[in-house]
């Protein structure tokens, strides 16, 4: 047990400078959301909440938000279920072709989204599927499933296999064991996975843009608003709310993930992924 030696100031200073670099753009969001000027520049022109009011009155924004939340909810649910199957299969069983199939499931994590979006577009058009919210969900599930698999795999890995065997010895069937023993233990992982997938889907742009057809989506709506300088402060207000929402969801996800670790006796270390 060797403790950390004297802390070198160079490292700490670099770490803080790096955090400033990471947070610089995000800190500006609320600054300009409350700034009484259409132009995003310093010096600031005084405090206002009118941009929030303008955002709240924007019916187009709400239409896009409704679609995006529907998509995010559906793709988070589907990918968490698919993630459960994949994580359970890869942590509990050995079978032929495991490596390639799991790699294929995780592939969208590194594949450029443009490639995913255009390949789905080409497929849907050649089969004759009409573009709608449904096609966006199908695309988002591909992108969010790797996150679900990563989170749920670590949840299943920390599971003590002897608990499962004890249940079998006590006469439970595989399905009742799963329902009564395994599911409650990985529940925090399931909640964390759902929240992360929801956040990823809500932010996703390219697939929404390619596959939504005429349906408005939140990210595409935001992208469109940047063309009109007068609408930018309104987007800053919307962005501020979205950031708060994302951070809240993530803090909740992290809370559940750690609770899951504590429940299965594991040690909470590391972060997401």
């Amino acid at each position: 047990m060797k403790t950390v030696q004297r802390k070198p100031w160079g490292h700490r200073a670099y770490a803080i400078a790096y955090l400033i670099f990471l947070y610089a753009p995000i800190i500006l969001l609320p600054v300009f959301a409350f700034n009484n000027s259409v132009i995003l520049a310093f010096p600031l022109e005084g405090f206002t909440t009118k941009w929030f009011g303008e955002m709240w009155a924007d019916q187009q924004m709400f239409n896009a938000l409704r679609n995006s939340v529907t998509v995010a909810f559906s793709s988070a649910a589907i990918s968490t279920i698919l993630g459960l199957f994949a994580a359970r299969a890869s942590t509990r069983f050995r079978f032929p072709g495991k490596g390639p199939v799991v790699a294929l499931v995780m592939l969208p994590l590194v594949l450029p989204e443009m490639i995913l979006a255009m390949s789905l577009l080409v497929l849907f058009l050649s089969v004759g599927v009409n573009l709608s919210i449904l096609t966006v969900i199908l695309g988002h599930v591909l992108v969010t499933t790797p996150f679900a698999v990563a989170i749920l795999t670590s949840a299943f890995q920390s599971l003590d296999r002897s608990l499962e065997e004890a249940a079998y010895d006590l006469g439970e069937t595989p399905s009742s064991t799963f329902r009564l023993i395994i599911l409650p233990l990985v529940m925090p992982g399931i909640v964390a996975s759902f929240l992360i997938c929801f956040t990823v889907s809500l932010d996703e742009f390219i697939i929404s843009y390619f596959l939504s057809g005429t349906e408005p989506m939140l990210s595409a709506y935001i992208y469109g608003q940047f063309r009109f300088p007068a609408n930018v402060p309104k987007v800053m207000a919307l962005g501020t709310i979205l950031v708060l929402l994302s951070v809240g969801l993530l803090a909740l996800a992290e809370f559940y993930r750690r609770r899951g670790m504590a429940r299965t006796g594991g040690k909470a270390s590391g972060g997401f992924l």
Partner: protein
Amino acid sequence: MQGSSGWARFRRSESASGLSMIAPPGIYVILLLAVPLFTVLLTSFYTDGVTETGAKAALPILTFENYAEVWTKPIYRVLMWRSLLISLSVTCITVLLAYPIAYFVSFHVAPSKKSLWLFLITIPFWTSYIIRVFLWKVVLGYNGVFSSGLEMVGITDGPMSFLTNGAVAVTVTLAHAYAPFAILPIFVALEKIDRSYLEAGQDLGETKFTTFVRVTLPLSMPGVIAAVLIVFIPTVGDYVTPDLMGGGKLPLIANAIETQMLKLQHRALGSAMAVSAMAIVALVTVLFLILNRRFLRGNSR
């Protein structure tokens, strides 16, 4: 179980349980990932044309012409080189900036605070990508935050823009966007290093610096390699950043693909561009892995 047939035995085997468990996600990715990618490959050999009803479509007349166009027209060659160069510089900058942070969190942060640091590092990544890119435009643009900041401190007099060099703006924005992707794999690799190796190194008379170069760095290389790939591959296909930061003046390969696919509806040509881009990315990836194979071999033991 001895009297049962081979099929019944297989059904009760571990392989069968595993295969039936992986089937739902497996079938999903085969139908919605493998099949679409294959369709793109097939479409890239089709001919862009007009159907009898007058709609633009990729007609199933096989040809190599799309590839001939993508590989010989100077415009596409410029786009591809530009995308590759920007991706490579983004990758270098991101990984070089990320390593010290991963090192700091792994070696100098108390174990109880590591999760908090990782959480702090990942938060910016979970906020809307488009808004983040746009905010960099606000930071670097004419009379932007950076410019007015420099003016206030007295380094410059008068507003100026840092967007005039689109490549630099795109690089900075992408380096920011992919930072957590680079930090996490390096951090994981550093965490795996047995700290007694470092003590052994120093006991044998190495200085801190030589211990780092001869022990820590080689042992963390698998993480660095993962970081390089996880940054390099997606940035080649980035669409939002060049569009917003470059103002459309500095298109990359993804913007050209979007133009062909959506605006011009040249799906065969667009597919050939995508396949070519992916082939080049795959080639660079394989070359990179071959060059670094000695670090990976040690890890797979």
